Structures are given as structure tokens and as C-alpha cells.
């Protein structure tokens, strides 16, 4: 797996751009299934989120969703908790030897996040200007776009 886009090839094996809004379809579930599968197979993956997806990793969510009154003892992780777990299990450390399992970089579009009051993001998530997207995709061997306004 390539670590840089200098001599060894693209920086990322896979870029997944997620703009389909959550709470409207199964796109987020599809994105996480695709990314987890790629990571498990050793890929170096990037996720770029825009729109309301930038709220999925805001710190205000915490690790656990509000309890279900009908099943009080069950615990339900937030999207922030789930993505934090993915990032912890697949750190994007260029010094890490390959292949030892995939590495994940999770980008949040700064404009979209600030526009929605989601400027505070969990550790490990990178906030970047939308102008960085093109460069990220050029440095990725393959791009998957899960779209929608």
C-alpha cells in the first residue's frame, strides 16, 4: 500500500466522498461498510464529508446516544463514537509499516461544518477547506462518491 504520492504512487488507495445527507437514506451505512471493508483489507483510505455529514463527528455528540426509554440498559454509540473507533483502530501514521491493516484519514469540510455549528470536531478528524478536495482526489488511486445535495 502506498504511503505517499511521490515515488511510491498515490497517497490513498481509496477516497470516499460523502455528501448524501444523513437521516435520509442508507448512504452513511453504505459508506461505513465500504470503508471498514477496505481498511480490513489493508487499504489506506480517505473519507471526505460535506454538508450535514460534517455534524456526524462533532464533539457535542459524545460517545453514546441518548438512552432508549424502551430498552434502558442498552448502549448505542454515536456516529462520532463509531468513527473515533475506526480512526483509533486504523491510525494514519506514515511511519507505520505496511501491510498491518488499513489506515484512515477523515476530512470534514470546514465551511459545511462551521455553517452548521459543528466546528468542534473529535480528535483525529481533520478540518479542511473545500479547496483541498481536488488535491486529495488527485492523490487517491480511486474515488467513490456517495452523492446527493
Amino acid at each position, binding site marked *: 500500500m502506498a504511503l505517499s504520492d511521490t515515488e511510491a504512487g498515490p497517497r490513498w488507495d481509496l477516497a470516499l466522498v460523502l455528501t448524501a445527507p444523513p*437521516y*435520509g437514506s442508507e448512504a452513511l451505512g453504505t459508506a*461505513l*461498510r465500504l470503508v471498514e471493508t477496505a481498511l480490513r483489507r489493508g487499504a489506506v483510505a480517505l473519507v471526505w464529508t460535506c454538508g450535514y455529514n460534517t455534524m456526524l463527528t462533532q464533539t457535542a455528540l459524545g460517545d453514546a446516544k441518548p438512552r432508549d426509554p424502551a430498552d434502558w440498559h*442498552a448502549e448505542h*454509540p454515536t*456516529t462520532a463514537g463509531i468513527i473515533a*473507533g475506526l480512526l483509533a483502530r486504523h491510525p494514519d501514521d506514515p511511519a507505520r509499516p505496511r501491510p498491518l491493516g488499513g489506515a484512515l484519514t477523515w476530512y470534514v469540510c470546514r465551511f459545511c461544518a462551521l455553517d452548521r455549528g459543528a466546528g468542534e470536531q473529535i480528535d483525529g478528524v481533520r478540518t479542511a477547506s473545500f479547496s483541498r478536495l481536488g488535491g486529495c482526489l488527485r492523490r487517491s488511486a480511486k474515488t467513490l462518491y456517495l452523492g446527493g445535495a
Partner: protein
Amino acid sequence: MPAGVLAVIERGYRGSVEVQYGDLLYVCRGLHGALGGVDLVLRGSAVTFALAGGGVPAELAAADTEPGVVPDPRAGLAGLIAAGSRVWVDEPDLRAIGCADAELLSGAERRDTDLMSELWPEYREVWFL
């Protein structure tokens, strides 16, 4: 004696891991207790909520947690039926997806729900969810 609310769901699968237990059918279960009962009309992609034998949704490996991270609409619907909700499933929409003869959850009824507006006067409220 009809329930207080007739709820119509025309589009299913609105969210997965971000929704978890709190899907539309969970909302209906809450309304059922709070508003004197909810009867349900399933149309469009929501008719698949009522298909028996669909199994439980595949868990999300990314979550690395206990099961239950993705919604289970069939379980939610079965719970509503058990709580006393009547559930009608649109027969033309079942036919449109090749499920005209498919087995439905126990208690769910096939019907051409275009005709359901005739029942609206019997309900205090009609909600399109």
C-alpha cells in the same frame, strides 16, 4: 373503533447507523402510546417493512459494538402490531416490486391504499411521516 391517528409512511430506510433504534417505527410506537393509538399505512419502499422472512439487518462491522446499531424495521413493525396497531400494506406497491404474493408479517393486511382516504374521516388526525 379506529385509533386516533392514521400514519402514512411512503418512503422507508431514512438513515441507518445515525438512526439506530430511533427510526420512524419507533416514533410511531411513541405516538401510539401518546395519541390514543396509531394505525399505519405503508406505501412505496416502506412496504418492505412488512415482508416476513427478511431476516435481521446485517450488523455494521465498523461499529465494533453490540448488535443493534442499525434499525430493524420488521421488528419495529411487529412491535407496533403487537401493541394493537392496524397495519395496511399497499398491494399495488407490493406488486410493483415483485412481492405481490410475498408473505407479510402476521397481522399486516394487504390493501389498495389509494382507497384509504375514505377512512380519513374516522381518524382524528392523519399524519404523513
